[in-house]
């Protein structure tokens, strides 16, 4: 153990002891595990049912705390954009087209077939999870991840060229920013109609129906598009780094 690491560990021990003591004091003041008093929970359930949203978590996320979710959306948008910028091809790097062939014929026939069969099914499941976010567990965030994952079956079961053909990159760019703008627009329309930002201004419909809960399914859809598009674009940059981009003159 070097002297520097030893010094660092002493510092760490003091920090861990301090934070640990604070945690013990803090947790001591919390209601004990399994306590049945949930003031906010009871009110959130009542507010959710009043807006005819069967999935209370979806109602909290996209109706009661929609403003916070917009902040979360913007964090996600900013982080994804920054990561995409960080991973772009630099001046002194080149794309090696030959490396597109990675994967390809190395994939078993059975795996290829399974991937081809499951790709449309997974995309459909993603859309289902997004569309039913106000009725059953799921929603825009979860469904968006399912969509992006489904898209990458093309890479796992095919090769990079197949994924590049399937992946409408410029459309996804527009979809990602458009979905964030749409979220904002839904909020502003609410402000125009009711006087408060992101208020639930769409007719609430019948409890348990696909068209219910007002703005919740709309915002779920927009978030689903944003998450799906951002994730595909992000993974695209990481895959480019791993497969294509090399320093000029460097061998593949």
């Amino acid at each position: 153990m070097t002297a520097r690491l030893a010094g660092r560990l002493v510092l760490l021990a003091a920090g861990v002891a301090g934070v640990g003591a604070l945690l013990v004091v803090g947790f001591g003041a919390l209601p004990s595990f399994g306590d049945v008093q949930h003031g906010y929970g009871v009110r959130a359930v009542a507010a959710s049912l009043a807006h005819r949203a069967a999935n209370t978590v979806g109602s909290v996320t996209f109706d009661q705390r929609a403003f916070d979710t917009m902040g979360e959306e913007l964090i996600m948008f900013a982080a994804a954009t920054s990561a995409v910028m960080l991973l772009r091809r630099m001046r002194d790097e080149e794309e090696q087209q030959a490396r597109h062939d990675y994967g390809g014929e190395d994939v078993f026939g059975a795996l290829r077939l399974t991937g081809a069969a499951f790709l449309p099914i997974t995309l459909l499941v993603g859309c289902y999870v997004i569309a039913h976010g106000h009725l059953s567990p799921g929603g825009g965030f979860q469904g968006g991840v399912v969509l992006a994952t489904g898209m990458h079956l093309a890479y796992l079961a095919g090769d990079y060229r197949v994924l590049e053909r399937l992946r409408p990159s410029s459309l996804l760019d527009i979809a990602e920013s458009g979905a964030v703008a749409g979220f904002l627009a839904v909020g502003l329309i609410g402000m125009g109609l009711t006087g408060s930002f992101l208020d639930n201004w769409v007719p609430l419909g019948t409890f348990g129906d696909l068209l219910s809960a007002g703005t919740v399914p709309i915002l779920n859809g927009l978030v689903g598009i944003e998450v799906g598009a951002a994730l595909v674009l992000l993974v695209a940059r990481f895959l480019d780094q791993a497969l294509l981009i090399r320093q000029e003159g460097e061998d593949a």
Partner: protein
Amino acid sequence: MLDAVLAWLPYAVAGWVLLVGCVGIVVSNNYVHAVVCLAVVQSATYLLLLAIGWEPHATAPVFGDISTKARVVDPVVQAMTLTDVVVGATVTALLLALTVQLAKRHGTLDPDEVRSLESDQDDHG
């Protein structure tokens, strides 16, 4: 006695996960490892939030196919956990992107070997 332990055990586990993740970051000699440790630190908050919302004999707060009178766990902390997961995932992606650039510019992933944020090689300044 057992009840008293169980009443605080989930919180203790959350605290332990938080601290063990911090220890991992400090002793880490690889940035990818450090990023994963940060994800461990963050997962302590999922555990804490869900532990606060749990109550016995209650089901998931989704009224698709149960009576609206049914006892459910607290949906507020679940929604916060969702926010937490999303922000955690994007921060992890951003940090890994930084790690990729760092590895390319400095040729190392060891925090101790990175002296400055500037590139080592003159022609990449």
